[in-house]
């Protein structure tokens, strides 16, 4: 009886989804996007290999709803160490987010489910492998973001937008969840940004208050500058937590002014990132290095035709707990396709 009820409910939901989908406009066909990559990292003479995929699905329902989600699949082949030639292997599969968006008004979208925590810029904007310039995320990423995602509700949107400036915001509440696929901590927070189109300058601030065990506040600030008429980009973030703080500053310049961005040289993109973290008191929770750390990342990305990209980088990390050199390379393919042929 119970199985029959479940089956009946599933059929009703399926029919409803199909009906709404059929009613949707031709340009609103659900899509699958994301990136597939083969990444390597060499540290201390040991090279690890990471085949990975990050598929994303976006599924519009009617004119105001969108279901979207992204998963991360990673295989890790790393040397056993201790002079052994063998490699250990493990795999990792997780949902990065799975959310339902309801476009409520011209200025507000209500989001429910598991969503990327809106603290700073990197977590929401630059974590997809087909976007990020470096394999490694900044050292301060976990400040304010925790595990990267929250489970609960969020309101976000554009508060004001005109030709001179735009202001956007996000405010969220996250429940504590120990579910394997939807883990999150209890807390709330948000972000607000101002963007000046003429200067192509964005300045924003973020705040998170964790309320699970101890009440802890994290604060963030970001500045992005991407001057018009130039492929130059400067992105930066600062984050302050209860036990540590730090910043990163990244610049890149696609050499597209040498004959356009499809020439041999124009496909090249030198990238540089500078990061520092400062430890004020010991903590094993915040995810930052245990000692003050400086790190310089020098990257060279090459944009091949057909959405292929090769990323290479050398990083020098300096810390009282030990210095290290990290060499990373990766080839990444970006895809974007309808789930089925639209009307």
């Amino acid at each position, binding site marked *: 009886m119970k199985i029959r009820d479940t089956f009946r409910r599933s059929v009703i939901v399926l029919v409803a989804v199909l009906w709404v989908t059929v009613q949707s406009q031709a340009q609103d066909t659900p*899509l699958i996007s994301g990136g597939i990559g083969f990444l390597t990292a060499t540290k201390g003479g040991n090279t690890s290999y990471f085949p990975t995929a990050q598929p994303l699905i976006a599924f519009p329902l009617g004119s105001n709803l969108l279901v979207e989600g992204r998963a991360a699949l990673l295989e890790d082949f790393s040397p056993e160490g201790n002079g052994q030639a063998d490699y250990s292997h493990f795999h990792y599969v997780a949902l990065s987010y799975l959310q339902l968006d309801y476009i409520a008004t011209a200025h507000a979208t209500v989001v429910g489910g598991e969503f990327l925590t809106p603290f700073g810029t990197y977590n929401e904007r630059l974590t997809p492998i087909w976007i990020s310039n470096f394999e490694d995320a900044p050292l301060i990423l976990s400040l304010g973001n925790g595990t990267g995602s929250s489970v609960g509700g969020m309101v976000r949107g*554009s508060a004001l937008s005109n030709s001179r400036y735009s202001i956007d915001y996000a405010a969220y509440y996250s429940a504590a969840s120990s579910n394997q696929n939807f883990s999150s901590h209890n807390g709330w927070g948000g972000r607000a940004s101002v963007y000046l189109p003429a200067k192509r300058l964005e300045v924003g601030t973020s705040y998170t208050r964790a309320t699970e065990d101890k009440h802890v506040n994290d604060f963030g600030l970001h500045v992005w500058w991407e001057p018009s008429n130039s492929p130059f980009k400067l992105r930066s973030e600062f984050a302050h937590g209860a036990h540590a703080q730090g910043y990163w500053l990244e610049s890149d310049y696609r050499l597209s002014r040498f004959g356009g961005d499809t020439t041999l040289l124009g496909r090249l993109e030198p990238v540089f990132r500078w990061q520092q973290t400062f430890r004020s008191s010991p903590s094993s929770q915040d995810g930052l290095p245990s000692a003050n750390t400086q790190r310089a990342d020098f990257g060279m990305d090459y944009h091949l035709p057909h959405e292929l990209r090769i990323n290479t980088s050398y990083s020098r990390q300096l810390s009282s707990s030990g210095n290290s050199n990290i060499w990373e390379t990766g080839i990444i393919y970006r895809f974007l396709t309808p789930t089925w042929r639209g009307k």
Partner: protein
Amino acid sequence: MNHLRLIAIALLLLAALRLRSQDSRSSTPAPDGDRSHKTIQPGESHQSDGERKFAHHCGRCHNSPEGFSPHISGTIVRHMRVRASLSKQDEQDILRFLNP
């Protein structure tokens, strides 16, 4: 280490100023063609509202895709409306640019 940090930041700022002055003198227009299969050039002039907003809001984080089916242009823009906190007007302008 402080010296290295100062040199790195100074070089970065110098490079930014140098490149900015060079690029304001030499912007390259993008080739014409199917808009849904066009890569947006940062130096484009005479941009429509949608094209300009696409560069500002979507191009701020990532390169434009080399091409995609017009059947998913509405889904892409709705996804971007949430992800990039677009206003309704921005969403409509970008959709018109992607799928005129």
